[in-house]
C-alpha cells in the first residue's frame, strides 16, 4: 500500500478530455448486443462499444474507473448500484434520466439516498413456461403441481417432470419466499432468509422435491434442457429460455401461480438493466445525452422488437398480440425489485449454501437458516478498528536501516569487494530477469501482501495492523474447527495437495517410463494423445468434468445406467456434490487428469539424461529390471524431477480453478481450499481485499515453511546417492 501511495503521483488519473470518444461497456450477447449496436449507430457521435465477459465486468470497472480509465457509461444490473456507489465507481445521472417516464417501482430500484444513480433500460424476471402438449391447463397454485406430477406418473409418463425450476438457487426460490411474506434482504440490510416465513417456504419446496414434482439437482442448464426436450410440462425461467426455444416445442408464458398455503401470489425478483455513469462520464453533457438516447422510447421499441426485452419505460406500449412480452411485462409489474443495497451481494452465498444443504439432506431447516444468517453477519462484520501505523513504520524503518548497514559493511569489507567483483559476470546474465520479475511479479506481490494490513470497504480503507490475521487465526471467535475456519480448510488443503501430487507423480512417472522404451511403436501418437488434457484450457475441461459428474445427464450416470441395463442391477445414480467424500473425489479426479501430462513430459525429459552405458553396465552386472529402475534410473532422474514436484505441489495447493469450477466448495463449503476461501473474500464477499490478502500471506508463509523443511530433509538424506554422478562439474 505504501508503494501504491508512492506510485499515485505517477499514475495520475487522466482528466476526462472532452473530445475523447465516449466509451460504453456492456456484457450483452446475441440479439441484445445487436440491438444495442444498432441503437448506438443511430446516435451521431463517436462511441467505442466494448462487449465484456459478464464475470469480469465488476472487477474491471473496480480497477479501471478509479484511475480515470474505463468507460464513461456502462450497462449493468441495478442491484450492483449500492456496491458501485460505495466504491465511487458511479455518479448520479442528473439530467440523463427522465423520471416521469418510469413507474414507482423502477425508480425505487435506481434510487439510493434519494438520488437517481442509473437510467433504466429494461426489466428482467422469471415467469411460468407452459407446454400445453404435456399438460392442458395451468394450475392456480404451486401446490397444484403435486397433483399434476401424480397424474403424469399414473399416465405412465414418468420421464416427464411436472415443474422444472432451480430449487437450490435463491434467485429462483425468492418468488416462493415472497409469497410467504419473506424477503432475501430486509430494507435495513439484514439477512432475510431466516425465521418462520423462510422455514415455511422451504418446507413447501421440500414437499415439491420429495413428491417428485420438481427435479432435485436442477441447475439452469437442466431446466432449459428439460423444457426444450419436451420433458417438463412447466418451467420457471426468464426470457433467456425463450431465446433458446424454437417452433418444435409449443409453449406459452403465463404469470406465476399463487401459493395455496398463504393465498398469495408468487412474486419474482425483478432486475432492472440500467445505464450507469462513471464519475468522469457524468460530467460530460454528451455522455448524459447518449445515456438518455439509449433509454429513449425509440431505443426501447427497437430492443423490444429485436432483443425481446421488456421496456422499463411506461410510455412504450407492447403490441397486444405479443403474448410473450405481455406476460413478462405483467409479471415484472407484479414482481419485487431486487434490493440495491451493497449488502445484497453478501446474501447470495450463504443463502445458496443453506438452500443446497436443506434440499439435499434432511437437516433441520431452522438450524441451517440460522447458520446462513451467521455466515452473512460474519461477512458483514464491521472492519477492525483503525490503528496507528507508526509501530509498523518504525519497525520497517529500523529493518531497512539495518539491511542497508549490513549491505554497506559487506561491500566495504575486503572479502565483500572481492566477491562482488567475482559476481560481476553473473550479474550481467541475470540483470534483465531481475528487472522483469522484480517489477511485474515481485512488486505486485509485495504491494498485495501489504494490503493484508488494511481493512474496510473500498474507498474507506484504513490501516488495521495485524487484525486481519488475528481474525483468521482465531476463526473470528467461533470454534477453531468450525465449518469454514482456517484450520479446517487447511487440513482439507493439505490432504488435497498430498493426494494429487501422489497421483500426478505416480501416473506421470509410469507413463514417462513406458513412453521412453526404445522400441515402442507409435510412440509419437501416444505422446500427443496423452498430452491433450494439458493442451485444452483447464477452465474448459474442469467444466467438462463437472458436466460428467452431473447426476441427471452426466456420463458417469450414463455408465451406471448402461451397467444397470446390461447386468440387470439397480445401482442408484450418485449425487456427487452432496457429500464431502464424493465431491472431493470428483475434484481430485479432475485435477489428476489435468496434471499428469505435465509430470509425464518432465519425466520423459529427465529420462534423456540417463546414460545408456550405465544401464547396460548394470544389466551386465546382473541387475534385474526393478533394481535398475530403483537404483540407477530413479536416482538419476530425481534431481530433475524435484523442482517439478515442488512446483507441482505448490500449484496444487493453490489450484483455484478446479475447486471453484468443479465442486464450487460443495457441499456446504467443505471442499474449499485456502485459496478458494481467499477468492471468496475478495470477490463474492464485498471485496474484502485486505482479508483475502491476509489469507494469501498465510498461504505463502505455510508453503515457504513447508518447502524449507522438505528441502532440508531431502538434502540431508539423498545427497550421497546421486550427488557425485550428477554434480561432477558444479564448481567453475
Amino acid at each position: 500500500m505504501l508503494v501504491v501511495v508512492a506510485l499515485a503521483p505517477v499514475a495520475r488519473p487522466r482528466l476526462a478530455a472532452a473530445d475523447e470518444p465516449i466509451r460504453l461497456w456492456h456484457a450483452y450477447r446475441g440479439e441484445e448486443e445487436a440491438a444495442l449496436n444498432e441503437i448506438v449507430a443511430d446516435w451521431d457521435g463517436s462511441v467505442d462499444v466494448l462487449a465484456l465477459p459478464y464475470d469480469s465486468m465488476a472487477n474491471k470497472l473496480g480497477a479501471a474507473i478509479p484511475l480515470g480509465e474505463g468507460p464513461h457509461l456502462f450497462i449493468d444490473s441495478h442491484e450492483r448500484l449500492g456496491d458501485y456507489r460505495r466504491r465511487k465507481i458511479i455518479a448520479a445521472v442528473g439530467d440523463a434520466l427522465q423520471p416521469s417516464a418510469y413507474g414507482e417501482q423502477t425508480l425505487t430500484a435506481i434510487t439510493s439516498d434519494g438520488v437517481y444513480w442509473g437510467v433504466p433500460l429494461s426489466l428482467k424476471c422469471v415467469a411460468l413456461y407452459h407446454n400445453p402438449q404435456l399438460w392442458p391447463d395451468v394450475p392456480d397454485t404451486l401446490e397444484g403441481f403435486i397433483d399434476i406430477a401424480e397424474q403424469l406418473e399414473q399416465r405412465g409418463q414418468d420421464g416427464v417432470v411436472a415443474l422444472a425450476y432451480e430449487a437450490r438457487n435463491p434467485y429462483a426460490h425468492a418468488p416462493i419466499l415472497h409469497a410467504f411474506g419473506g424477503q432475501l434482504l430486509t430494507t435495513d440490510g439484514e439477512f432475510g432468509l431466516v425465521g418462520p416465513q423462510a422455514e415455511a417456504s422451504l418446507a413447501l419446496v421440500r414437499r415439491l422435491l420429495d413428491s417428485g414434482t420438481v427435479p432435485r439437482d436442477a441447475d439452469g442448464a437442466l431446466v432449459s434442457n428439460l423444457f426444450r426436450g419436451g420433458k417438463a410440462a412447466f418451467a420457471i425461467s426468464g426470457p433467456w429460455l425463450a431465446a433458446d426455444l424454437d417452433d418444435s416445442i409449443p409453449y406459452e408464458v403465463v404469470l406465476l401461480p399463487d401459493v395455496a398455503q398463504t393465498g398469495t401470489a408468487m412474486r419474482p425478483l425483478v432486475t432492472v438493466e440500467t445505464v450507469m455513469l462513471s464519475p468522469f462520464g457524468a460530467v460530460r453533457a454528451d455522455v448524459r445525452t447518449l445515456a438518455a438516447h439509449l433509454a429513449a422510447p425509440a431505443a426501447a421499441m427497437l430492443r423490444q422488437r429485436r432483443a425481446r426485452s421488456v421496456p422499463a419505460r411506461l410510455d412504450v406500449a407492447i403490441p397486444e398480440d405479443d403474448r410473450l412480452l405481455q406476460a413478462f411485462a405483467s409479471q415484472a409489474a407484479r414482481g419485487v425489485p431486487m434490493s440495491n443495497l451493497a449488502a445484497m451481494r453478501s446474501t447470495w452465498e450463504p443463502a445458496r449454501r443453506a438452500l443446497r444443504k436443506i434440499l439435499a439432506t434432511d437437516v433441520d431447516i431452522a438450524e441451517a437458516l440460522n447458520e446462513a444468517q451467521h455466515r452473512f453477519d460474519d461477512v458483514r462484520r464491521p472492519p477492525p478498528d483503525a490503528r496507528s501505523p507508526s509501530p509498523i513504520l518504525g519497525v520497517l524503518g529500523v529493518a531497512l536501516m539495518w539491511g542497508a548497514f549490513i549491505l554497506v559493511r559487506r561491500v566495504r569489507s575486503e572479502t565483500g569487494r572481492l566477491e562482488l567483483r567475482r559476481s560481476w559476470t553473473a550479474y550481467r546474465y541475470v540483470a534483465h530477469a531481475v528487472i522483469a520479475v522484480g517489477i511485474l511479479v515481485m512488486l505486485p506481490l509485495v504491494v498485495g501482501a501489504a494490503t493484508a494490513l488494511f481493512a474496510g470497504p473500498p474507498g474507506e480503507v484504513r490501516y488495521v495492523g495485524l487484525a486481519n490475521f488475528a481474525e483468521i487465526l482465531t476463526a473470528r471467535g467461533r470454534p477453531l474447527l468450525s465449518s469454514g475456519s482456517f484450520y479446517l480448510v487447511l487440513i482439507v488443503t493439505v490432504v488435497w495437495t498430498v493426494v494429487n501430487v501422489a497421483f500426478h507423480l505416480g501416473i506421470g512417472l509410469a507413463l514417462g517410463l513406458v513412453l521412453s522404451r526404445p522400441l515402442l511403436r507409435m510412440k509419437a501418437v501416444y505422446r500427443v494423445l496423452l498430452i491433450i488434457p494439458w493442451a485444452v484450457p483447464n477452465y474448459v475441461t474442469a467444466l467438462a468434468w463437472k458436466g460428467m459428474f452431473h447426476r441427471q445427464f452426466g456420463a458417469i450416470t450414463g455408465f451406471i445406467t448402461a451397467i444397470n441395463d446390461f447386468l440387470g442391477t439397480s445401482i442408484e445414480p450418485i449425487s456427487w456434490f452432496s457429500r464431502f467424500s464424493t465431491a472431493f473425489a470428483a475434484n481430485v479426479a479432475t485435477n489428476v487428469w489435468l496434471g499428469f501430462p505435465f509430470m509425464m513430459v518432465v519425466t520423459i525429459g529427465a529420462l534423456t539424461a540417463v546414460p545408456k552405458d550405465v544401464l547396460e553396465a548394470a544389466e551386465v552386472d546382473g541387475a534385474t529390471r526393478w533394481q535398475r529402475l530403483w537404483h540407477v534410473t530413479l536416482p538419476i532422474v530425481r534431481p530433475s524431477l524435484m523442482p517439478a514436484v515442488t512446483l507441482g505441489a505448490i500449484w496444487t495447493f493453490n489450484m483455484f480453478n478446479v475447486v471453484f469450477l468443479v465442486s464450487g466448495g460443495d457441499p456446504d463449503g467443505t471442499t474449499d481450499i485456502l485459496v478458494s476461501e481467499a477468492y471468496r473474500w475478495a470477490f463474492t464477499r464485498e471485496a474484502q481485499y485486505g482479508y483475502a490478502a491476509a489469507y494469501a500471506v498465510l498461504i505463502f508463509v505455510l508453503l515457504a515453511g513447508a518447502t524449507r523443511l522438505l528441502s532440508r530433509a531431502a538434502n540431508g538424506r539423498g545427497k550421497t546417492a546421486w550427488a557425485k554422478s550428477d554434480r561432477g562439474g558444479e564448481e567453475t
Partner: protein
Amino acid sequence: MSRTMERIAVHIVLVGAVGFALYPVLWVVALALSGSPSPEAAALPIPSEPTLAHFEAVVTASKTMSHTTPQVEVWLFGRQLLNSLVVALATALVGIGIATPTAYALARFEFLGKTSGMRALLATQMFPAVASAIPLYLILDALSLLNSRTGLVLCYASTTVPFAIFQLRAAFEAIPVDLEEAAMVDGATRWQAFIKVVLPIARPAIAVTALFAFMSAYNEFILAATLLDDETMYTLPVMLQRFIGEYDAQWEKFAAGAILVSVPVMALFYLAQRHLVAGLASGGVKG
C-alpha cells in the same frame, strides 16, 4: 513369448491411459457438434443431431467498427486467433530470452545473492495472485502499458520466468562442464561457449520450457480480460468467456470455441515433440 506379452501389456496400459485422457475431451467435442440437448445421460460421447452450426457461429464472429468512416467490418475470430498466437509466441520468446542466461548463471556461477535470488523465485510461485491483481494494474497504468498487447506479453513473460529458470537450470546442470571448458581452451569466450556449445545441447529442454510458456500465455484469460479494453485485441480465451452469461450459458458454442482454441496448441506440441526427439538423437547429453 514374454517379450510379446509385455509389449501387448504396455500397449494396453497406454490405450487405457489415452482413453482416460481423451474421454472428457470427446464430451466437449460431442457437445460442440450437438444440434439439440440430449435429455438422457449417456456413457458414450455421441452428439445428438450432429451439426457444424456452432463452429460456424464461433468462426464467423465479426464486428462493425461503428466509429470509423467508412464503416469497416472486422473478422473478430481471425483477429483474436492472431492476437492469441502473437501474444503466446512473444511470451515464449521473451520468457525464454530472459530465463535462459539467468538459468545458466545459476547453474554455473557462484555469486552474491544467488541463494536468496533462488528463494525469491520460488517464493513468487507460492503467493496466490488474489491480492496482486490491483497493484499490477496500477503498475501497468504507470508504465502506460494498459490495453496493449505489449503489456500483456510482459506480464505473462515475467510470470513464466521463475518456472522457466527452474527447468533450465536443472537442464544446464545436467550438461557436463567439460564441453564448455574445451571450447574455452580453443579460444571461445564464456558467452560464446554458452551460445554455441551449451544452448544447442539444451535445445530439448528449451523447447519444452518454451512450450510451457506458450501454453500458459495462450490459455490465460483473467489478466487478458482485465487489461484489454478492445474487442479486436481480445485473446481467444476472453472470447470463450463471453459465452457464459449472467443467466444462461451457450455451452455448445463454448465447447466449439474451446476445441478451436485447443487445436493450435496440439499442433504445436506435435511439432515441438519432433524437435525434442531430434534434440535427443544428437546425443550431446551423454557425457
